[in-house]
């Protein structure tokens, strides 16, 4: 699979990453060469193989449904790029 400029722009849009126009073409080349290399996986016979999602079968214990943390508004807001009256300030979403 080879990516063209338009597809890179579309993927960058999905990933919410601004890519300057003059970098789309070089990026298309880099990503295409990585994908071509990845595509050798097609050779592997995986008929009937269950996809692996977790390397070790770990039994997960359930914990009691109780509040274990909280009451730390100041800590949560401490790194906010912009804040006001104990809230995050974010760009307007609804006009």
């Amino acid at each position: 699979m080879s990516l063209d400029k338009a597809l890179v722009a579309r993927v960058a849009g999905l990933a919410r990453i601004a890519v300057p126009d003059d970098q789309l073409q070089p990026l298309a080349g880099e990503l295409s060469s990585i994908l071509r290399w990845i595509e050798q996986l097609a050779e592997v016979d995986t008929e009937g193989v269950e996809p692996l999602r977790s390397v070790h079968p770990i039994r997960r214990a359930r914990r009691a449904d109780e509040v274990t943390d909280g009451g730390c508004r100041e800590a949560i807001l401490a790194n906010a790029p912009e804040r006001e009256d104990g809230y995050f300030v974010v760009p307007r979403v609804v006009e």
Partner: protein
Amino acid sequence: MSGPERLGLVEARARLRRRELSAVELTRACLAAMERGRGLNAFVTETPERALAMAEAADGRLARGEAGPLEGLPVAVKDLFCTAGVRTTAGSRILADFVPPYESTVTARLWQAGAVLLGKTNLDEFAMGSSNTTSAFGPVVNPWTPPGQDPPLVPGGSSGGSAAAVAGFLCPAATGTDTGGSIRQPAAFCGIVGIKPTYGRCSRFGIVAFASSLDQAGAFARSVEDAALLLQAMSGFDPNDATSADLAVPDWVGGLTGRVKGLRIGIPEEYRLDGMPAEIEALWARGAEWLRAQGAELVEVSLPHTRYALPTYYIVAPAEASSNLARYDGMRYGLRVPGRDLVETYARTRGEGFGAEVRRRILIGTYVLSAGYYDAYYLKAQKVRRRIVQDFEAAFARCDALLTPTAPSAAFAIGEKNDDPVAMYLNDVFTVTVNLAGLPGISVPAGLSAAGLPLGLQVIGRPWDEATVLDVGRALEEAAAFRALPPAVPEA
């Protein structure tokens, strides 16, 4: 002249316990070494005031007989572990001013054990890289760089700052993380020991996430015993990490014998790559001979899907990364670059906040997860990943541990391999399989290349069998008797 900064963890601990050395003296010596070694760019943030306060408290506990297992021992921490009140950058511009309000479980365990934080070490941005050249805080210099060589050698990556700091005697030990080789490859490039335990042994809580099914914390030190001591304090169950294993942590230090008599050591034939440098092949054969001479039995084994491990990794890791890194949106913490509206603010924040390699991997991950491609890439990779795990299961039916080279070459120069992402990725050809299968692995310095640079051997073990990995590592360490020092470090 050599001071306490040259001591390893176990030796320093004995002197602290005998009160021949104070934690403050030891910490001061390391802080001075860090200052002299600033040319390595191993640290993103030094924490001298905190270090001295922690050392003073440790001296108090030593005096009162309340010493923890790492009491008064200074360590460096990869800048991927959240440290409460100490800036944690992940080597990225997007987190350049981030000060976590909480502590990672692994580092909390270290402080609980009495360790002293010297500072946060440099790394590839979000741990994505094999050379520590993708850091927003500049590349790290390998202390083995021959005097006058420009550009200098890389320390490997992604935990390059930790490896360079330990190899350059700025600190006795350091934490790292390993997603595809990020502890073992820099350990090999810098001539020190690096261990990645079984997936699930160390909590991932509070470690900036890269690829959650592969990420695992581990330890750097200058001896196998020191690495075992640090790893032991880092390990253990944590309810805050759903993949943390509720298993007791064995006494690896107390149980370390270095005995390999009767062990079956597997030599995987597929690791004999075409075009592998002869000196790597020779080192590997020498390592096998050392173990045979100490009573181990060598067994030829096959891991047939080895060549598919890197392509599998470069689907699974970017896919998980694209999902994990979606949280950096400039709203609640981290960099915000305002745009006309919300979507443009996201895009500009992430466009300016992420470096080229991180951007590349997020785009690959976004692409392989996108509608219409998921089955062809991600699902296929998960199936091949199971094949790789099955290869190891079959091999471990015939042997107790595997011996391989750690990396296909010695350290290279900064800037080399930067034009070709795939050439850079090939650095991890021997280490990445271990992450895909969630196994424990160690790299031990085993010799020097013709150019005088360190080379490492890797031991891979069964899940949860760090003890055997450490014993085989110790046996290699004894046989190799690696005593060479980096050019910048004077003889003791």
